[in-house]
């Protein structure tokens, strides 16, 4: 029996197919129930995770704001956890690890960032219509303010070091909305590339770099992603910088000189010199590079390869990849301690967090955590 004849037999077995019921709607309803159930079960587990690995700095916390995490106010007094399933944000007093009353935000909150002075948390809500919103939360009282209207399917936010502007990437509008934090009013949307996914801002606050996923699927021709630099003084976009296919995340060195973009479909990382905004030679990493973090001294970028279950260290001085470090199945997120000694990798499928000693690049014993670990935040 060869493949063609077997395929033919399977086709015959599939004849007399009855009409399909409303499976999509029913499974959405069942899925929402399942998600609520899991979130409820997850609360106890997540507290344990925070206790075990919560070490973080505001800088990392701000970066974490890109995707629903638990960023903290400066000084680490409070952490905010975005609950995508219940449209709320839970404040946690870090001194006692006690959760406060959930704060109601918009539909499908997806990301959060806190101003450098710690006074306001901005929560990005995917929304349920043709536009999303941003809910400002006054951290002193944990009261939500009036929602700020942004573009279609906003999914990432970054705030300038001076705290004056919050930039929100709208995936389906191909724009970035600047929000003046003094008045919480949105500015004119800035045109960027196709499907903007994440934003980083240079330490001097002069440029915001937006990574655009691109239109294509996988490695189709012409499906490359781009990075759009935005001059924050004027909110005007610069010329797009071409990177590889399927970029989803972006990281910047602490000195602001280089931006690194993992290309999830090309299995490379593109370095971009910020002085000239030109891309360097792509650095070969493992399959499906999914997350990236750079050590505080700026010497090493760690890239999580979710397709090969490895972490590749890249020496930033030479942009050469080191030997891949084997971790568990589907590494999902990377965070580095402020002293730069340990890299924590969230392993989505085990579910564990693997510590890596940066001195030797050897993985330590995995730490068991709750289901589907997604992001890690470390206290100062």
């Amino acid at each position, binding site marked *: *029996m*060869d*493949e*063609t*004849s*077997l*395929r*033919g*037999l*399977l*086709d*015959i*077995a*599939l*004849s*007399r*197919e*009855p009409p*399909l*019921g409303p*499976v*999509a*709607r*029913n*499974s*959405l309803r*069942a*899925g*929402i*129930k*399942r*998600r609520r159930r*899991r979130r409820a079960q997850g609360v106890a587990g997540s507290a344990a995770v925070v206790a075990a690995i919560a070490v973080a700095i505001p800088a990392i916390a701000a970066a974490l704001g890109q995707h*629903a995490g638990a960023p903290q106010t400066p000084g680490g007094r409070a952490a905010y956890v975005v609950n*995508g399933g219940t449209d709320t944000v839970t404040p946690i007093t870090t001194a006692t690890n006690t959760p406060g009353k959930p704060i109601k935000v918009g*539909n*499908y909150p*997806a990301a959060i960032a806190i101003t450098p002075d710690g006074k306001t948390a901005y929560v990005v809500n*995917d*929304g*349920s*219509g043709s536009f999303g919103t941003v809910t400002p939360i006054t951290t002193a009282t944990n009261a939500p303010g009036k929602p700020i209207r942004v573009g*279609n*399917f906003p999914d990432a936010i970054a705030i300038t070091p001076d705290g004056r502007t919050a930039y929100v990437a709208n995936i*389906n509008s191909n724009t970035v909305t600047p929000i003046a934090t003094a008045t919480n009013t949105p500015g004119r949307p800035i045109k960027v590339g196709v499907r903007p996914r994440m934003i980083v801002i240079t330490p001097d606050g002069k440029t915001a770099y937006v990574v655009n996923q691109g239109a294509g*699927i*996988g490695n189709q021709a012409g499906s490359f992603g781009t990075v759009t630099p935005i001059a924050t003084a004027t909110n005007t976009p610069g010329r797009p910088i071409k990177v590889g296919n*399927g970029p*989803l995340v972006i990281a910047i060195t602490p000195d602001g000189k280089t931006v690194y973009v993992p290309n*999830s*479909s090309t299995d490379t990382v593109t370095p971009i010199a910020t002085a000239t905004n030109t891309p360097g030679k792509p650095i070969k990493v493992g399959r*499906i590079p999914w997350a990236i973090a750079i050590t505080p001294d700026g010497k090493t970028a760690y890239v999580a390869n979710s397709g090969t279950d490895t972490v590749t260290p890249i020496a930033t001085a030479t942009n050469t990849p080191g030997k891949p470090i084997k971790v568990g199945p589907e590494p*999902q997120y990377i965070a580095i301690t402020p002293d730069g000694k340990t890299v924590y990798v969230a392993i*989505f499928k085990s579910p564990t967090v693997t510590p890596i000693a940066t001195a030797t690049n050897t993985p330590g014993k995995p730490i068991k955590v709750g289901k*589907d670990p*997604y992001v890690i935040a470390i206290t100062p």
Partner: protein
Amino acid sequence: MTAAEEFIEFAEVTSPRLRRTAFLLCGDWHTAEDLVQTTLAKVFVSWRKIRRQDAAHAYAARTLVNTYLADKRLKRVAEVLTGRLPERPVESPPPELRIVVLEALATLPPRGRAVVVLRYWEDMSVEQVAAVLGCSQGNVKSQSARALDKLRAVLGDALDGYGPPGRPLEARHETGDTQHG
């Protein structure tokens, strides 16, 4: 588009194909639809992560197979596995070919059946099937070879008189080596 709208769009596009895969796994359209619904509900729970990838269908197919296998483990005790087709009286007219094929598939162990469906219906490579089932490529090849041996044996006589479903069944033996591909 919101996450929910995006998910609905994905689910509507992917559920007909998923249901056919599910049917080949379980052999019953009602169970197939239930399997798909459960699968998609599970997919929705992790939708935020999945939609960042371009491999949503692959993820759904993997969830479907794992849901089927988990379900199968629970029901295993209640089932009588036989290596041969039920005997039929000689006089009765031959059953429809689709029934013969389904009965043959039903003789396969759940994982072997999953390998056949994924490789020959979902058109996955050995590597992809190994990733879905969480086993080695060698294991996929041996499961595949064993399942085909069994199908060939079970269908060998039963197929006489039905004619070829495209190309005639040939005697080529799939060893599982890549060069035989």
